[in-house]
């Protein structure tokens, strides 16, 4: 609860600091990135997972091990491209929004949980996987589900 409330206070403060939703979203993403590049160490140490041998395995690990470890939920994973590099994580339950009913009217484009995208992106980069991570759907914005899209870009040179 402390975590969820603190996240909420953080977003509220950012909304006070920045007028435009896009700026808040960018800020959250950047903060998430900073967290992700450090969180990966903690994750690898505590989960002792083997090196993932495919994008699919990576996406599964993120959903089933990492999300479970840090947020206590397990999003479902599906591959959304024939090329095998685009995945979508569907969050049935999102603890970060436990105390949020809906976005205020003047903040309609706010990606409340954008921090998560940054975290995933930062963590992946530290294991030499470049990826684009964004929210494709958001329950807070009225969509049916909350969906995070991960697109693996060409593997970065080691």
């Amino acid at each position: 609860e402390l975590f969820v409330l603190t996240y909420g206070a953080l977003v509220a403060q950012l909304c006070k600091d920045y007028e435009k939703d896009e700026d808040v979203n960018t800020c959250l993403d950047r903060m998430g990135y900073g967290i992700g590049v450090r969180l990966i160490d903690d994750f690898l140490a505590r989960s002792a997972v083997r090196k993932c041998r495919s994008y699919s395995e990576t996406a599964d690990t993120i959903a089933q091990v990492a999300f479970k470890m840090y947020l206590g939920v397990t999003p479902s994973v599906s591959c959304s491209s024939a090329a095998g590099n685009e995945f979508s994580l569907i969050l049935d339950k999102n603890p970060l929004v436990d105390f949020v009913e809906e976005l205020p009217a003047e903040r309609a484009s706010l990606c409340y949980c954008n921090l998560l995208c940054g975290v995933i992106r930062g963590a992946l980069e530290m294991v030499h996987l470049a990826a684009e991570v964004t929210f494709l759907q958001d329950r807070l914005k009225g969509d049916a589900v909350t969906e995070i899209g991960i697109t693996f870009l060409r593997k970065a040179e080691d």
Partner: protein
Amino acid sequence: ENGRCTTKLESMGFRVGQGLIERFTKDTTRFKDELDIMKFICKDFWTTVFKKQIDNLRTNHQGIYVLQDNKFRLLTQMSAGKQYLEHAPKYLAFTCGLIRGGLSNLGIKSIVTAEVSSMPACKFQVMIQKM
């Protein structure tokens, strides 16, 4: 710049403190008096947030309380030397707000400050404001 940053952190802590205390005290009985509330902050509140109790509570019985935490969890990850002493206040600001927010929702107006003498021990001073 630094001062504004600390103020923002303190206000964030304040909001969170208000929210937290609401959830904690939903089912508890009314507090007897001010000292009872302070003891609650030192024991239950501190344990839920920091997984340990306040080590020492002192008061002058005239509205000033000093809460001492000898191993403050937000500071234990930093090395115990003097090098990080100047950055410690940022970490304490959020917590001061947390206490102030919690007390505020229990009907107590206060000013909370903190000081670190030697890491990771720190003291929070609560000055109750008579309304």
